[in-house]
């Protein structure tokens, strides 16, 4: 490879947040190539992208862009060099018009007045490049469908000269014709010598559009191959690696009791469809799959945090007589379902509140007398007890929980539900962002709950955790169930194959919502 074909060279890149995310990663991108980046959850794709475009700075390692050391301190630094990223989440201003969104960086005209006709003209041209020429540039972006918004986002990036383009799941919300248009544009950019990093779960697309494919696993580059020389099985094998997993606690496995909850044909538009599964008393059912495959949305719908559109949840407590579709968590909790949410800080904890405030919130009614005065002595005793049982480290029970480490915060959140003592418990990423020791303790806790005869569902993006903690695993892929497995015999290849299954086939249904 000669110097002038090499656009970006990454050597020995390390990035550590709480845990190492990228470890001695090497990666090259040529001019005029589309380079697909693949890997399972947490392999490091996003972190690598974020470092290239200046959102994060590396812990260690060298990046070279166009032969010069590349150390962007901010997104702006990277943008000045012609590096752009289209994120999965949209960064548009919903109440501004298409034209204003597209021209946002160059709004100011003479004396600070906006030249609307010039803006409109520019916007029309940009819209043409992404096949949206029939849209009125004055339309507010909020009136567009998700797919159209995604294309606007792409058009916005393409409006400026670009040398390196990163696309993160750009086709997730697009229809087939829109995908074709996008690919035409990408081919044009390739001819102009732009280097494109293309992140996607969709095997068929990647094999069609990309020149080379790189596979990341556990923060390392495991292979870079020409797209023509590699088949899907090899890709899956490379993503999987050969991670050894051991059961954390086999004592209670296989001792499951009767069915505790039946989920029947549950659907929520745009999130998951037609999911049916049973959970037994005394078992842990693991849900695997990629982030965004609808796992979280499924549990939230069972719990009533979001409302399902169709299907039902039936419970052993009423002999499966009633078909529930819970509209509030309150109703699900009184029917015996608890849920430890994924977003600990945003939706779980009261960060300025104390350990006591955070743990006892569901138990206050039981702790209070006829005048609804809380028995604080009893409350403190209860909280101190469970904190000791879960080995939560704190200085005083009344200090703000934000002072505690992530692991202890997570244990406190779990403690809230253990105190409530419900027969069915749902865990969404129960050990995200906690240290190894807290993680092990959390796994033990989950097994203990099953051993006590509770029905437990656990979502996890970590294969080891999923296999270690579950009695049974189901995998979700693109909103659908893609198989059920026994963790004792499940291989990581099988798990990944199932996770990617429904992303591989092009979506035939017309997904675009029109205004």
């Amino acid at each position, binding site marked *: 490879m000669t110097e002038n074909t090499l656009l970006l060279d990454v050597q020995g890149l390390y990035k550590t947040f709480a845990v190492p995310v990228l470890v001695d990663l090497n990666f090259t991108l040529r001019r005029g190539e589309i380079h697909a980046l693949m890997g399972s959850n947490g392999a490091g794709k996003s972190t690598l992208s974020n470092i290239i475009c200046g959102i994060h700075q590396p812990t260690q390692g060298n990046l070279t862009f166009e032969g010069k050391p590349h150390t962007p301190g901010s997104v702006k630094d990277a943008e000045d060099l012609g590096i752009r990223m289209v994120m999965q989440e949209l960064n548009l201003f919903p109440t501004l018009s298409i034209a204003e969104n597209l021209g946002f960086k160059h709004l100011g005209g003479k004396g600070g007045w906006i030249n609307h006709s010039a803006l409109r003209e520019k916007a029309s041209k940009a819209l043409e490049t992404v096949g949206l020429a029939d849209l009125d540039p004055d339309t507010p972006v909020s009136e567009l469908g998700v797919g159209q918004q995604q294309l606007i986002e792409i058009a916005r990036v393409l409006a400026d000269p670009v040398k390196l383009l990163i696309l993160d799941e750009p086709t997730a919300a697009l229809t087939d014709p829109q995908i074709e248009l996008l690919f035409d544009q990408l081919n044009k950019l390739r001819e102009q010598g732009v280097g494109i990093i293309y992140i996607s779960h969709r095997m068929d697309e990647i094999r069609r559009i990309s020149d080379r494919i790189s596979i990341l696993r556990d923060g390392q580059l495991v292979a870079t191959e020409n797209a023509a020389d590699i088949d899907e099985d090899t890709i899956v094998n490379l993503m999987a690696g050969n991670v050894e997993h051991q059961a954390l606690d086999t004592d209670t496995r296989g001792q499951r009791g009767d069915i505790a909850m039946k989920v029947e044909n549950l659907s929520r538009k745009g999130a998951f469809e037609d999911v049916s599964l049973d959970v037994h008393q005394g078992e842990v059912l693991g849900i695997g799959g990629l982030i965004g495959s609808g796992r979280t949305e499924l549990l939230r719908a069972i*719990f009533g*945090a979001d409302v399902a559109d169709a299907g039902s949840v039936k419970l052993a407590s009423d002999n499966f007589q009633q078909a529930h579709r819970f509209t*509030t*968590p*309150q109703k*699900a*909790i*009184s029917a015996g379902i608890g*849920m430890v*949410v994924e977003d600990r800080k*945003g*939706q*779980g*904890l*009261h*960060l*300025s*509140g*104390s350990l*006591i*405030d955070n743990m*006892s*919130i*569901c138990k*206050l*009614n039981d702790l*209070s007398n006829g*005048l*609804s*005065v*809380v028995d*604080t002595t009893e409350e403190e005793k209860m909280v101190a007890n469970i904190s000791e049982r879960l080995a939560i480290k704190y200085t005083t029970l*009344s200090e703000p929980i934000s002072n505690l480490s992530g692991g202890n915060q997570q244990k406190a959140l779990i403690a*809230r539900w253990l105190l409530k003592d419900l027969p069915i418990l749902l865990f969404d990423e129960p050990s995200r962002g906690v240290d190894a020791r807290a993680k092990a303790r959390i796994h033990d806790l989950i097994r203990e709950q099953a051993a006590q005869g509770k029905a437990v569902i656990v979502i996890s993006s970590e294969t080891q955790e999923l296999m270690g903690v579950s009695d049974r695993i189901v995998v979700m892929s693109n909103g659908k169930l893609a198989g059920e497995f026994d963790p004792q015999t499940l291989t990581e290849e099988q798990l990944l194959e199932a996770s990617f299954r429904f992303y591989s086939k092009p979506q035939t249904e017309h997904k675009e919502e029109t205004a």
Partner: protein
Amino acid sequence: MQIFNRSIKLPWNSLGLIGVLIALVIFFSAMSEYFFSGVTFRTLMNQIPALTVIAVGMTYVLLIAGIDLSVGSVMALCAAVMGVMIADFQWPLFLAFFAALAVGLMAGITNGFVSARWSIPSFVVTLGMLEIARGGSYLVTGSETKYLGTAVEFLGAPVPMLGVSVSLIAAVCVVIIAQLVLSKTVFGRYMIAIGTNEEAVRLSGINPVFWKVTVFAIAGLLAGLGGAFQLGYLQSADPNAGIGLELSAIAAVVIGGTSLSGGRGSVVNSFLGVLIIAVMQTGLAQLGVSEPAKRIITGLVIVAAVLFDQYREPLAQFFQRKSNA
């Protein structure tokens, strides 16, 4: 200090406010020979009952990260209803009193229900109610002040042995009960929890809408009570009463250290905030400070109080470092 909520660093905070209050009293006593006297004390104490109970309601509303701009108008409407019932319809006092409370309660429930049920900012809903209730009070009184004379005098008149009015005693009782509810009961915990993370409350199986409506209902009810106190104090129902009172109440609550973004606050401290404002107003008046200057000074004090509250931890650290050095 047991009545203070342990999740708030109250003792220190309350003591700070009491310190400011004492400093103000000493300052005005030194500046004016008339300030430190029974007469001043009684005048002051008889002015504050309405503002006190309204500030209590406002504390609850701010705790759940809401705001209630309608309390001044609702107070006027309730006083107008009570006054008309007594003056024009010869209702017995207690019936007219309950009518006033009922009107306040209804206004509060409406505020709470509309804002919580349909997720409309309470700022907007209560701004609407501010206009509606003001219009209502003009309608009820026919835009005239209703003079009641002695019928309601006892509410505002000093009780012989104590030297303070029934209204003030009632208002202080409201403060104590409201603080106990806040720091001791499940409802109090829920208010703080809703103020810190409403979604977490919902996902804990508690219905935040119900409790938010309850809070606004209490604020409305207390505005009604304030209306009755105001009636007793003025011995008349003035449709223009309480204009801008919502802002005085917010100022008092904020001086008391309650956070506008919810989740942190104390009723007792709001009461201290009311006292600080009242002492300043009376003291400045006795010094012969003009009305415009009074308002400018009050405004500065409000901003200074919030600044201090916002940065009290860095400040405390700063002084600690100084004393260590």
